[in-house]
């Protein structure tokens, strides 16, 4: 530290804290306090006519715990997130591998095409799926029928299938990016050595490539899963008003029903569930693949 030579030690020790203080103060005031207020809110009472009553009761939590409507909704949220994650793994990982084997110009171009959508508004991308799915004459159904893959139009709009496909598309760049980053650390000489020793290509992928990109695949999976489970715009547009997931239900409670305490409970539960899943799987991955990360 260059400045440490001149000012006394005590003053030097204060420098990093002074530099970080604005960010820290902002985060304490406008992240921690609001989150704590939301947790508190989930214990408040609410009535159609009396509004929010600042008491401490377990009513909202009991309602979520006992009402099968909420169980189904949370199960649906996790199911949609799990399936969307699965699709991004099955399609995104091979694509990252293929991209990585392309030559310079093509690689750059297709990387731009595949990662670029990440920066395009999620509303615009979901609108694209709504147009593709839309009704009986949606482009997706016409294309599938022309290809002879299906006889009658499939319902995509307002179904879980539609939400899963659209979410997989919206979140795909995260998976490609994550596997791509893992592939960059790979030494191509190991692959060449295996091939030179007579291994078949399938064996090389299974025994050499896959184990090494596994951490990238898993961390990509965690990112996609948590974003899919908390997604709002895509399930709201494709799923419609009836196919509720956690985020859209919380939104409804807040801005339509105006039952803020119940909405807060749903949101807090979503947060707890996701943080638990993410932290647990991160710990698992780091223990399992400690040597790869080193």
């Amino acid at each position, binding site marked *: *530290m*260059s*400045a440490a030579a001149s000012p006394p030690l005590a003053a030097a*020790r204060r420098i*990093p804290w002074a*530099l*970080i203080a*604005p*960010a*820290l103060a*902002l*985060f304490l005031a*406008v*992240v921690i306090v*609001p*989150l704590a*207020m*939301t947790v508190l809110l989930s214990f408040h009472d609410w009535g159609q006519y009396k509004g929010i009553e600042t008491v401490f009761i377990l009513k909202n939590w009991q309602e979520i715990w006992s009402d099968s409507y909420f169980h189904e909704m949370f199960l649906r949220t996790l199911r949609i997130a799990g399936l969307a994650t699965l699709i991004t793994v099955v*399609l995104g990982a*091979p*694509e990252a591998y*293929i*991209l990585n*084997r392309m030559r310079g110009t093509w690689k750059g171009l297709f*990387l*731009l095409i*595949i*990662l*670029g959508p990440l*920066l*395009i*508004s999620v*509303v615009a*991308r979901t*609108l*694209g799926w*709504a*147009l*593709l799915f*839309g009704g009986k004459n949606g482009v997706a159904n016409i294309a599938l029928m022309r290809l002879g893959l299906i006889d009658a139009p499939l319902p995509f709009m307002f179904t879980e299938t539609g939400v899963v496909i*659209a979410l997989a*598309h919206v979140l795909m*760049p995260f998976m490609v990016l994550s596997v*791509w980053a893992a592939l960059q650390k790979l030494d191509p000489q190991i692959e060449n050595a295996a091939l030179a020793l007579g291994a078949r290509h399938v064996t090389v992928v299974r025994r050499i490539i896959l184990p090494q990109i596994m951490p990238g695949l898993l961390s990509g999976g965690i990112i996609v899963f*948590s974003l899919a*489970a*908390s997604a*709002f*715009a895509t399930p*709201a547009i494709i799923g419609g008003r009836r196919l509720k997931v956690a*985020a859209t239900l*919380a*939104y409804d409670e807040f*801005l339509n029903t105006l039952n803020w305490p119940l*909405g807060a409970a749903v*949101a807090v539960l*979503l*947060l707890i569930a*996701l*943080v638990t899943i993410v932290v647990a799987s991160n710990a698992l991955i780091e223990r399992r693949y400690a040597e790869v990360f080193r």
Partner: protein
Amino acid sequence: MSRNGPLALIFHTLFVIFMVAPIVVVCLVAFTPEGFLSMPTHTLSLRWFRAIGRYPEFVNAFWMSIGLGALSSTLCLLIAVPASLALARHEFPGKAGLSAFLLSPLMIPHVVLGIAFLRFFTQAGLSGTFPALLIAHVIVIFPFALRLTLSSATGMDRALEQAAVSLGASDWTVFRRVTLPLIMPGLISGWALAFIQSFDEVTMSIFLAAPGIETLPVRMFLYIQDNIDPLVTSVSASVIAITLLALVALNRMFGLERVLTGHSDRSR
């Protein structure tokens, strides 16, 4: 390096079609000459782009998003740069936890942040105001800016600063003439990424939006909830076009995957 086989190329082609199909469809439908949702089959028409001008709510929302994005990313950098300097070059107790804390908005679902901000700003008497939306955006985009400024501050050659100090430069001169130019690429890409994140954000903003302070994605989302017509496709196509321009520029300057993975340093 071995080449991709024919099967791999077929897979790749299908994958690319899957990725671009929804975006292409939006852009095609935007050029329809008809009064309803349809692919333009005979002729392309700009009627729905012209129609945007007649709906001031979209035009106003667009300028709101631009202003909010520019202001929030600038404010964000003003606090992210000192924070990243502290994290990059000082050792102090609790550093790792602190940096995780400052990156935590990445892990908190935006719907939860939206609810927390709505409750907080309502209690503070600021609900439905621009400052509330602005502060919320600064928080949400902060991790993106921090990652990029942090990586350029970490990758910087400290010897240049020490040389300036030994030649008698004051602290402020060192920062302005040596440190700042060296971390500038990280600052610019951090600002750009923060701006795009702010411009695209919908889930959190929708909780804080009120008539007059609606961002463009929020306006588009609320419009789509009511009905989908060619107007919203031409608005979306315009947003896509602007984003693509920004994307190509960002890619030219810094390399897209570097910006997205948070490594602004070219040498890495």
